[in-house]
C-alpha cells in the first residue's frame, strides 16, 4: 500500500491526467443518460471536481481540496495557476480581436462597476453582522471581490486574522457560487455571446469562477470572459486598500 501511494505521489501529474479523464468520461455518460444532454458534461465534471474538493477537505482537514490526499497530490499541479493560465492564454487562438476591441471600453467599465458593487455588497453583509470599524468592513468588502484581494487588502490596512479568514472564505464562496450558478443563469442574463461574456468577466472578476462557469456554459466564451477577469484582482488590490478604504474611513471613522 505504501509503495503504491508513494508511486502515485511521485507521478502525481500523470495520475491527475488519468483521474480527470475518468471524471470527464463519467460526466459525459451521466449527461447523456440522466439529463439527455440538458446539463453539459463539462458542468457535471466541474461539479464533481467541487465535490471531490469537499471530500478531500473533510478527510484531511487541509486547504487544497483533493490534492491534500497524498496519492492525488497531482491535482494540485494540474489545477494550479500555472497550467490554468497557460491553457486560458491558448484559448485566445479562437478569439476575435475585433470583438475584443469593440467591447474594450464596456469591459473596462464593467471592471470598475464589478469591484465597487462587490465591495458594497460585502460591506453591507458585514454591517448586518455588526461590524462597524472601517478596517473590518473594508477587508470583508475586499474579500467579496476575490479571495486574493481580501487578504492583500487586510494585510495592507492591518485587519485582524479572523476578519482576514472571513474575507478569504467570502471570496472562495464567490468563486464556487459563480462556477455553479453561471450555466443556470446564463439564459436569463443573455450570456450567449462574446460581448456579454466580456462584461460578465469584468463584473464577476474571480478568474477561477469565471473560467469554470463559462466553460460549463459555452467553451467558446471562455477567452472573452477571461480577458477582462484577469485585470480584476489587480485592480481590486489597487483600489480596495486605497480609495475604497479612505471612503470607508470617511463614512465610519477609525472606531
Amino acid at each position, binding site marked *: 500500500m505504501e509503495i503504491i501511494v508513494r508511486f502515485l505521489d511521485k507521478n502525481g501529474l500523470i495520475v491527475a491526467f488519468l483521474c480527470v479523464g475518468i471524471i470527464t468520461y463519467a460526466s459525459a455518460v451521466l449527461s447523456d443518460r440522466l439529463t439527455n444532454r440538458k446539463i453539459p458534461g463539462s458542468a457535471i465534471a466541474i461539479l464533481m471536481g467541487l465535490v471531490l474538493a469537499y471530500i478531500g477537505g473533510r478527510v484531511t482537514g487541509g486547504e487544497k481540496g483533493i490534492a491534500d490526499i497524498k496519492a492525488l497530490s497531482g491535482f494540485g499541479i494540474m489545477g494550479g495557476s500555472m497550467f490554468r*493560465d497557460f491553457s*486560458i492564454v491558448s484559448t*485566445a487562438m479562437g478569439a476575435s480581436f*475585433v470583438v475584443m476591441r469593440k467591447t474594450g471600453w464596456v469591459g473596462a467599465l464593467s471592471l470598475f462597476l464589478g469591484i465597487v458593487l462587490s465591495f458594497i455588497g460585502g460591506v453591507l453583509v*458585514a454591517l448586518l453582522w455588526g461590524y462597524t470599524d472601517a478596517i473590518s468592513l473594508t477587508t470583508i468588502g475586499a474579500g467579496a471581490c476575490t479571495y486574493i484581494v481580501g487578504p492583500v487588502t487586510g494585510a495592507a490596512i492591518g485587519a485582524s486574522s479572523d476578519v482576514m479568514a472571513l474575507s478569504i472564505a*467570502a471570496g472562495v464562496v464567490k468563486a464556487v457560487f459563480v462556477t455553479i450558478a453561471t450555466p443556470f443563469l446564463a439564459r436569463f442574463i443573455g450570456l450567449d455571446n462574446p460581448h456579454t461574456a466580456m462584461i460578465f468577466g469584468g463584473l464577476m472578476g474571480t478568474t477561477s469562477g469565471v473560467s*469554470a462557469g463559462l466553460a460549463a456554459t459555452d467553451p467558446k466564451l471562455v477567452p472573452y470572459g477571461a480577458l477582462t477577469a484577469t485585470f480584476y484582482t*489587480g485592480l481590486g488590490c489597487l483600489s480596495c486598500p486605497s480609495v475604497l478604504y479612505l471612503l470607508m474611513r470617511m463614512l465610519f471613522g477609525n472606531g
Partner: protein
Amino acid sequence: MIIYGVAILAFCYITGQLAGEFLGKALGIDANVGGVGFAMLLLILINDWFAKKGGPDKLTENGIQFWSQMYIPIVVAMSAVQNVKVAVSSGLIAILAGILPVLLCLTMIPVLAKLTKKAPQHGDYSPVS
C-alpha cells in the same frame, strides 16, 4: 513542429505574465495586473501576423490547440483543489458576503449589454472545442 506551437504559447505566456508583474510593481501592489490578458492579446497578434504570411503550419497550430482543448480538464482539476470545505462550513456571513455581490453584479449585466447593443453580437471567432 508541435514544439514550435507550444514554444510560441510559452513565449506569449511568459512575456504577458512578466508585463503583468511589472505593471503591478509599477502601481505599487503585490499582484499581477492583467498578465493573462496581455499574453492573450500577444497570442492574437502573433496569430494574425502568421495568418497574413500564409498561416502557421498545421503541426505548429496543433501545439497551441492542444492546450486550448486541455482547458476544461484543467478547470475540472482546478475545481477539485478549491477550498470547498471552508466555503461550505464558514458560516452564513461568508456565504452571504460571497453570494450577494454576485447577485448585485448579475443585475448589471443586461444594463451594460444594452448600453452597447450597437456592437455586433458575434465576431468571426472559431470554436475552440
